[in-house]
């Protein structure tokens, strides 16, 4: 398979009242064509910022991409002109957000919002674009799409708005969809409808998908590969099987043990990760996870670990070999 996206040493910082926040601090990973990558980690660890950086949607000030490369279809997106970047956003990479209301225009009909990008990016005539928009709304299973296209976003339920967002993204036949917590605000059954829809669409069109979520079940079901983030860095990456069956970073191990599982009959006590999530403006020296880590050794207090292979395509950033405890 060919590489679609290569993120290399990406750094995005924010200058805030509390000090410099290294929201994304040296993140590197690849994404192949047709692959679904899951991005997990606690609130504030830099998941959204790392995704927004790919599309250069970081508000400046206070934020800035200070280093790195984002190679997409052979070009470094951090180097191209803003005009070219707009074309990438409209035609090649689609983004779906958690709260669709913030990205839908309340004053335009849903049909208009889906058809407008088609006019701009694909030079379609107004009428043809509207017809295509209805088709797209049908493809995301909005009932009575022709009629619904004339409605405004606030007439739509949360699930329907998210469908409309997906159809907007699909209009340009993107090769990559980035979905940032696309279903977190939705009910379980609607969440399942949407994720199955996204899965079907990506499969049908051979698209890659980056799915950001804190739900470990969603990642297990939909992703082939997983990046686990902690305090602005990737601390472990691997295939979903690697991450779920053979987690190597103490944070990943902790996450897995702290969620209840539906398929366990016996009441097992949950094993929480002790302590509090990190404050990115005030990170400790050394490994940022060390204050909460039960495996930490002297070295962890002073030196920040980098990603090292533990196996083929499986990497972790941790000084301790969990199995031997060294």
């Amino acid at each position, binding site marked *: 398979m060919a590489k679609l996206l290569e993120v290399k040493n990406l750094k995005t910082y924010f200058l805030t009242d509390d000090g410099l926040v290294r929201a994304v601090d040296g993140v590197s990973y690849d994404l192949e064509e047709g692959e679904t990558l899951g991005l997990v980690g606690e609130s504030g660890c830099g998941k959204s910022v790392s995704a927004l950086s790919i599309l250069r949607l970081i508000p400046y000030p206070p934020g800035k991409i200070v280093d790195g490369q984002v190679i997409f279809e052979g070009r470094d997106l951090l180097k191209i002109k803003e005009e070219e970047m707009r074309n990438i956003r409209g035609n090649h990479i689609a983004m779906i957000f958690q709260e669709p209301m913030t990205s839908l225009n309340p004053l335009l009909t849903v049909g208009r919002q889906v058809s407008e990008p088609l006019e701009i990016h694909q030079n379609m005539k107004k009428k043809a674009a509207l017809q295509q928009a209805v088709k797209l709304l049908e493809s995301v299973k909005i009932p009575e799409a022709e009629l619904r296209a004339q409605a405004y976003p606030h007439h739509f339920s949360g699930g329907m708005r998210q469908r409309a967002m997906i159809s907007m993204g699909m209009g340009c036949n993107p090769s990559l969809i980035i979905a940032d917590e696309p279903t977190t605000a939705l*009910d379980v*059954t609607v969440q399942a409808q949407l994720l199955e829809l996204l899965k079907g669409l990506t499969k049908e069109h051979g698209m890659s998908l980056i799915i950001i979520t804190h739900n470990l079940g969603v990642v297990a079901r939909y992703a082939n590969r997983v990046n686990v983030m902690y305090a602005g860095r990737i601390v472990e990456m691997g295939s979903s099987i690697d991450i779920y069956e053979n987690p190597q970073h103490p944070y990943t191990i902790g996450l897995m043990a702290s969620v209840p599982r*539906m398929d366990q009959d016996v009441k097992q006590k949950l094993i*929480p990760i002790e302590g509090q999530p990190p404050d990115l403006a005030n990170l400790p020296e050394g490994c940022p996870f060390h204050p909460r880590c039960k495996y930490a050794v002297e070295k962890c207090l002073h030196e920040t670990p980098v990603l090292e292979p533990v196996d083929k395509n499986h990497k972790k950033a941790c000084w301790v070999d969990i199995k031997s405890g060294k």
Partner: protein
Amino acid sequence: MENKNLLEVENLRVYFPVHRGTLIKKKVGEVKAVDDVSFKILKGETLGLVGESGSGKTTAGQAILQIEPPTAGKIIFEGKDITGLEKNERRKLRREMQMIFQDPFSSLNPRMKIGNIIEEPLIAHKLTNNRKENKERVEELLQMVGLMPSMAERFPHEFSGGQRQRIGIARALAVNPKLIICDEPVSALDVSIQAQVINLIEEIQEKLNLTYLFIAHDLAVVRHISDRIAVMYLGKLVEVASRIDLYRNPLHPYTKALLSAVPIPDPRLEATREHIVLKGEIPSPMFPPSGCRFHTRCPEAMPECSSRIPQLKEVDSHHFVSCHLFKD
């Protein structure tokens, strides 16, 4: 004989009128948020209450606490009907039942010190005799929820989400309640912090012999913490069973869909697991479907489902379901 039920809810209904117009308000309809719901909670047990947004979980909890007066039905606490009590008696009842809320940020007064927040109910219910006793009790409560006594002097904004939830729990425990209604107590917390709070809720239950109504939409969490689980759909109970039965042998088509929709953190299992994808979304509670409220989305709907309302019946030992697929 001693009554083993701490709480019995009988045919509870909570309807909210819907008005139109600004000057002359006209009632144009009503939301049947809770519609003929009955269940029991045994002493010392945890009953989980699950269902999608708007299904009436919070309203049911508030009706039990009499925050929201029931439109009809009975709420029997320790064998005594507590609906329509005098103000005085209702106040006394507040000591027996407490609530823990979803949002640890908005449920604490930002201008009050933690110590004052926790001692407020102690003073209101005259549970302590002097300031010294107050202070000791606050310290004891803070320790019980895993916080330091010195934290009594700090303000809510100095605490993380998980710590604020602990403070909310300490405040609820202050009056020595028998029943605690936990309304989505961990939904707003990060996964790693959720486990800390869930463990705390379990520990204090054991220590203080508490009874819980645990409301949440995360089925894995509810299943973990509950002895029995009740499933709601659009104001109605559709199934009640023990945690094991409900998962191993769900009977109602809605329960089946709900359980199958929850992905399990196990990629190998998920690769082969079938998901029942329901059509459509939960209908408006102002215009609920006729007959069985689930029939518009039910993969197994039959003609009678749109005309007859199914009743909750025991189809297996301690396993209740409300569905026409099951005959008495």
